[in-house]
C-alpha cells in the first residue's frame, strides 16, 4: 500500500499536468482504471483518469480525455527500476491504455445511442434562432431542442456519432463521451465533387456553402481539421481539398492558420483565409462568416471567386463530377439507407438473422428477407418525404443543385429508362436527379431489365429508389361471408388495387454492356436541331411563352391579377444566366393563371399556399434549368426552405403533388401548350381544337403525312412486348381512325386529310403545324417546336427510329412512362 508520500507525489504530478482531481481522495493504487472529476472542469464531467500500481515501485499513468495526453508517473526516491520492473511497468501502461480505449469505445457507443435519441426527438430549426440570425446563416442539416441548435457529428458514411449543441449565445458543446475526432458535418454532396471546402465551425461552413455552392465539410474545431482532412482525402483521393482556415491573427501563433496549413500540407490541399481589408475589424474578425457579416454575402462571394477558381476553374458552379470515392457505392450523407447496395435478387440474401439459427422452414419462408419487420408498415410517401426533408436540411435539396444538360447534346435531360426508352415522371425525375451521375447520362435501368438485354449490373453497385404503382388483381372477390362478389352483369367481380412500390434502378454507368451514349444517341459532335441552351433560345422561349413581361423596379414577381411578370431591368442582373433563372422562375408562377394550369394564387406570403406555389416554381425552375441550361440561383430561394419543410412534414404526399405540378409547368413552358397559340406575336387562347372538316395537310404527296396511327401500328409490330412505345399518345388513336388512314394510295395521292382523321389530342398539334405553314415561318422556336411535335407524334413523313436506346430528344416531346 502506498503511503501518503506517494499520494501527494502523484497529486503534484497531476497538478503540473493540469489534470488534478477535484477530490484528492479518489487516488488509489489498485491497478484499476479510474475516472475522476478534474478540478476546474464543469461539475459532473469525469474527464480525468488514472491507473496506479503499488507493487514494487509505485508507478502508473494518468491523463485527461479532454486533452488526450497520457502522463507517466513513477515514485522518486526508490531505487532505479530493474529491466524486469521497467518491462512490467511498460506492460501495465499498455494494458491500461488498452482498457482506456476499450472503455472509450463503449462510451462512444453509448453516446451514439443518446445522440440518435436526441436527434429523433429534435424539431426543425426556428429560422429566427438568435445564433443563426446573428451569423446570417441558414439552418443546413440542423435541428433544435428547446433553444439549442443540434448539429450532427457524422462519419463520411453518414452514420451519426454524436451531436454538437449551440446555444443562442453561440456557445458550443458536444454530447458527453461522443466521438468527434475525424467526424464532421457535411453541407452539400461530396459524392463526385471535384473539390470541396473544409472549415472549422458551422457558421463559417454555411457562409462558404452559400457563397460558393461548393460542398463544405464542417470539422467543428481546428484540432479536427487534420483528422477530417485525412479521412476525406482517403475517401475522395481525386478531389481537391481547400481548407478555409480561421485567421487567428489576434492570437499568438495564429493557431487557426497553422492548423489549416498543417492539414492542407498533409493532404496536398490548399488554404484560403478571409481577407478583411477595408472592413471594420474592431471586433477582431477571424473567419469567413465574420467576413460575410461584416461585408455582406457579395463581398464573401467576391473574395472566394479567385482562389476557388484557381482550384476549380469553373468555380461559379459547384465543382461536381468525377471525384469518385475509393469505395464505390459508399457515399456521405444520409438518406441512403433506402438504397440497396447490391443488385436486386442478391441484396436480400444478406439478413439480420443468423442463418445457423434459422430452422429450415423458417429459412425457406424467408422472413429474413424482409427489410422491415412485419407489422411495421412502410409508408412510401413518408419514406420519400423523409428523404427530401433530410436533403433540404443538409443543404442538398434536389432543386438546389445544378441541373445541367447531359454531356452528350443528343441525350435527353430527363431521366429515362434505358431498356424501355420511357421517361421517368414526377417524383422519380426529382429523385433520380438527386444522383449527380444523371447529369452525365440520363439512363437508368432495373436489374432484371438489364439482365434481359444482356447487360450486367456491376457487383456492389448501389441502386437508386424509384416509385411507381402496379395493379394487384383480386380474382374471385368474396364478401365477408365468403360469397363471391358479382359485377353488374352477374359475372364474378374482378377488382384491382393500385399498389405503390419502391423499386431499385441502376445508373448506366453501373451497368456493363449497355450501349454508350454515342451508340445510343449518335455522335456527340452533332448538335441536334432541337437542342436548347443558347441565350437567344432562352429569350425566344421567354418571349414566345406569351407572358406579358415588364422590366422595371428592383424586385421580380408575377402579378396574378394583371397576369404579368415584372422583372428588374436586365442590367441589374450580374449575368444573363441570373436573369433567365429569375425570369423562368416567375414564368413558373405565370403558368398558374386560371387560363393555364389554374393554380389559384396565394393571398398571403406567410400562408401555406404561398409556400406550396413557391415550391412548385422552384422545382419547375430546376426542371427548366436542366432543359434550357439555366443556372438555378441557390441563394435567392433559401428563405423558403423552412416553409417547404413545414409543408412536407405536414403532408407526406405534398412532394409528390409538387413534382407532378412542376413537371406540368415545365412541360407547358417548354413545348406543350395545348390551349394557347401565337398570333401575330401575341399569345391568345386556342379555344377549340381543329374542327373535323379542317384540312390537316394539303399539297404535294411529299407533304402529306402518313397517319400517326398507321405508323404506330407498324412500329408496334416490330416491338417486343416489353419494348418501349415511344409514341404513347398514339395509343389514344381509335382503331377506326388508324384503319381509315392506312390507305397508302390515299396517302400518296395528295388528297387532303381532315382533322376528323385525328384523335382529339392531336388536333391542337395539327393546328400548330398549320399555323406555322400559314405564317410562312420556317425558323425560330415555333418552327423547331413544330418540327419536334411533328417528329414525335409523328405527323410527317420521317418515322422515328424504333430502337429504344437510340431514341433522341424527339422522345422528350412524348409523355414519359
Amino acid at each position, binding site marked *: 500500500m502506498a503511503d501518503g508520500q506517494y499520494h501527494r507525489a502523484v497529486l503534484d504530478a497531476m497538478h503540473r499536468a493540469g489534470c488534478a482531481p477535484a477530490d484528492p481522495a479518489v487516488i488509489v493504487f489498485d491497478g484499476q482504471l479510474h475516472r475522476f472529476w478534474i478540478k476546474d472542469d464543469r461539475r459532473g464531467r469525469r474527464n480525468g483518469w488514472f491507473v496506479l500500481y503499488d507493487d514494487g515501485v509505485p508507478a502508473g499513468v494518468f491523463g485527461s480525455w479532454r486533452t488526450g495526453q497520457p502522463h507517466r508517473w513513477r515514485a522518486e526516491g526508490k531505487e532505479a527500476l530493474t529491466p524486469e520492473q521497467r518491462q512490467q511497468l511498460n506492460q501495465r501502461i499498455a494494458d491500461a491504455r488498452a482498457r482506456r480505449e476499450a472503455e472509450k469505445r463503449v462510451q462512444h457507443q453509448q453516446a451514439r445511442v443518446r445522440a440518435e435519441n436526441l436527434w429523433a426527438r429534435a424539431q426543425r430549426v426556428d429560422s429566427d434562432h438568435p445564433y443563426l440570425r446573428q451569423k446570417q446563416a441558414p439552418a443546413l442539416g440542423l435541428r433544435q431542442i428547446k433553444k439549442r441548435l443540434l448539429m450532427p457529428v457524422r462519419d463520411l458514411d453518414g452514420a451519426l456519432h454524436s451531436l454538437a449543441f449551440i446555444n443562442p449565445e453561440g456557445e458550443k458543446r458536444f454530447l458527453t463521451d461522443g466521438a468527434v475526432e475525424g467526424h464532421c458535418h457535411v453541407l452539400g454532396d461530396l459524392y463526385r465533387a471535384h473539390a470541396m471546402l473544409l472549415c472549422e465551425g458551422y457558421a463559417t461552413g454555411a457562409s462558404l456553402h452559400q457563397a460558393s455552392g461548393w460542398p463544405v465539410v464542417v470539422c467543428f474545431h481546428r484540432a479536427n481539421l487534420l483528422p477530417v482532412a485525412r479521412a476525406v482525402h482517403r475517401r475522395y483521393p481525386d478531389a481537391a481539398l481547400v481548407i478555409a482556415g480561421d485567421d487567428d491573427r489576434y492570437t499568438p501563433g495564429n493557431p487557426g492558420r497553422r492548423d489549416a496549413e498543417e492539414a492542407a500540407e498533409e493532404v496536398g490541399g490548399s488554404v484560403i483565409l478571409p481577407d478583411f481589408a477595408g472592413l471594420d475589424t474592431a471586433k477582431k474578425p477571424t473567419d469567413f462568416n465574420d467576413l460575410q457579416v461584416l461585408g455582406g454575402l457579395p463581398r464573401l462571394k467576391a473574395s472566394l471567386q479567385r482562389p476557388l477558381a484557381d482550384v476549380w476553374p469553373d468555380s461559379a458552379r459547384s465543382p461536381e463530377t468525377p471525384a469518385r470515392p475509393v469505395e464505390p457505392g459508399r457515399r456521405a450523407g444520409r438518406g441512403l439507407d433506402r438504397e440497396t447496395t447490391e443488385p436486386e435478387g442478391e441484396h436480400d440474401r444478406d439478413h439480420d438473422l443468423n442463418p445457423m439459427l434459422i430452422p429450415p422452414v423458417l429459412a425457406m419462408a424467408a422472413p429474413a428477407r424482409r427489410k422491415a419487420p412485419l407489422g411495421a408498415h412502410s409508408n412510401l410517401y413518408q419514406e420519400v418525404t423523409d428523404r427530401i426533408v433530410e436533403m433540404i436540411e443538409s443543404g442538398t435539396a434536389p432543386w438546389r443543385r445544378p441541373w445541367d444538360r447531359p454531356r452528350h447534346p443528343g441525350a435527353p435531360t430527363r431521366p429515362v429508362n434505358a431498356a424501355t426508352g420511357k421517361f421517368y415522371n414526377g417524383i422519380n425525375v426529382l429523385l433520380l436527379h438527386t444522383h449527380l451521375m444523371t447529369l452525365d447520362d440520363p439512363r437508368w435501368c432495373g436489374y432484371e431489365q438489364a439482365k434481359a438485354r444482356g447487360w450486367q449490373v456491376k457487383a456492389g453497385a448501389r441502386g437508386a429508389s424509384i416509385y411507381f404503382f*402496379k395493379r394487384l388483381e383480386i380474382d374471385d372477390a368474396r364478401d365477408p361471408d365468403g360469397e363471391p362478389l358479382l359485377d353488374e352483369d352477374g359475372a364474378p367481380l374482378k377488382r384491382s388495387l*393500385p399498389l*405503390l412500390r419502391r423499386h431499385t434502378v441502376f445508373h448506366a454507368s453501373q451497368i456493363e454492356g449497355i450501349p454508350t451514349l454515342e451508340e445510343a444517341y449518335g455522335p456527340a459532335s452533332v448538335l441536334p436541331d432541337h437542342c436548347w441552351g443558347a441565350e437567344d433560345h432562352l429569350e425566344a422561349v421567354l418571349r414566345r411563352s406569351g407572358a406579358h413581361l415588364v422590366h422595371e423596379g428592383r424586385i421580380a414577381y408575377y402579378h396574378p391579377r394583371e397576369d404579368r411578370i415584372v422583372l428588374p431591368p436586365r442590367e441589374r442582373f450580374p449575368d444573363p444566366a441570373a436573369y433567365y433563372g429569375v425570369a423562368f422562375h416567375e414564368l413558373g408562377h405565370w403558368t398558374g393563371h386560371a387560363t393555364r394550369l389554374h393554380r389559384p394564387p396565394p393571398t398571403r406570403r406567410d400562408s401555406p399556399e404561398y409556400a406550396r406555389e413557391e415550391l412548385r416554381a422552384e422545382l419547375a425552375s430546376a426542371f427548366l434549368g436542366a432543359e434550357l441550361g439555366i443556372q438555378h440561383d441557390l441563394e435567392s430561394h433559401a428563405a423558403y426552405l423552412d416553409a417547404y419543410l413545414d409543408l412536407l412534414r405536414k403532408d407526406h404526399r405534398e412532394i409528390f403533388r409538387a413534382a407532378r405540378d412542376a413537371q406540368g409547368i415545365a412541360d407547358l413552358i417548354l413545348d406543350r401548350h395545348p390551349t394557347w397559340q401565337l398570333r401575330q406575336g401575341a399569345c391568345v387562347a386556342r379555344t377549340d381544337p381543329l374542327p373535323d372538316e379542317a384540312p390537316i395537310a394539303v399539297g404535294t404527296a411529299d407533304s402529306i403525312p402518313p397517319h400517326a396511327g398507321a405508323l404506330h401500328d407498324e412500329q408496334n409490330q416490330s416491338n417486343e412486348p416489353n419494348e418501349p412505345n415511344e409514341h404513347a399518345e398514339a395509343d389514344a388513336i381509335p382503331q377506326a381512325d388508324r384503319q381509315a388512314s392506312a390507305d397508302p394510295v390515299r396517302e400518296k395521292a395528295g388528297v387532303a386529310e381532315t382533322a376528323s382523321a385525328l384523335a382529339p389530342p392531336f388536333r391542337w398539334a395539327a393546328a400548330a403545324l398549320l399555323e406555322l405553314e400559314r405564317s410562312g415561318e420556317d425558323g425560330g422556336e415555333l418552327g423547331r417546336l413544330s418540327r419536334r411535335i411533328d417528329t414525335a407524334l409523328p405527323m410527317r413523313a420521317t418515322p422515328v427510329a424504333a430502337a429504344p436506346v437510340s431514341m433522341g430528344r424527339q422522345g422528350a416531346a412524348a409523355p414519359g412512362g
Partner: protein
Amino acid sequence: MLKHHLKDRDFPAPHPLDAQDALVGLAGLIAALDAADGPNVDLPLERPDLLDQFLDPAVQDALPEALRPAAETYRDGLPGYRSGDRKRAAKQHALRLALWRGEAQVVDEADLEALGLTEEIDDG
C-alpha cells in the same frame, strides 16, 4: 418465427379490408409454412428465396405433402394461374409478397393522378 409475425400483423392502411383481401391467400400459405416449421420437417429447399420462387415448378415438386393443400389453394387463387398465364400469376405473386413485406402499399385511385404516379409493367 413466422407465427408471431403473422399473428401480430395488421394490414396496411388506408384500405385494410382490401389489403386483407389481397393478402388472405398468402397469409394462409405462410400460416401453413409456420405450421410445418420444426426440426423434424425434412425440406430440401433451404433457400432464403423460397417465397419469391414459390411458383417455380421445382419448388412446387419439392414441397412436402403437408404443405401441398395450402400451396395449391394459394396458387389457384392467383390471377392467371389456373388459366395458364404463369407470367401474370408470377407478377401477381410478386405484388402480394411486396405488400406482405411492406415494400408496397395500397394507394387511393384518386391519388394516382393527383400525385402523378405512373404505372409500370416492367420493373424500372
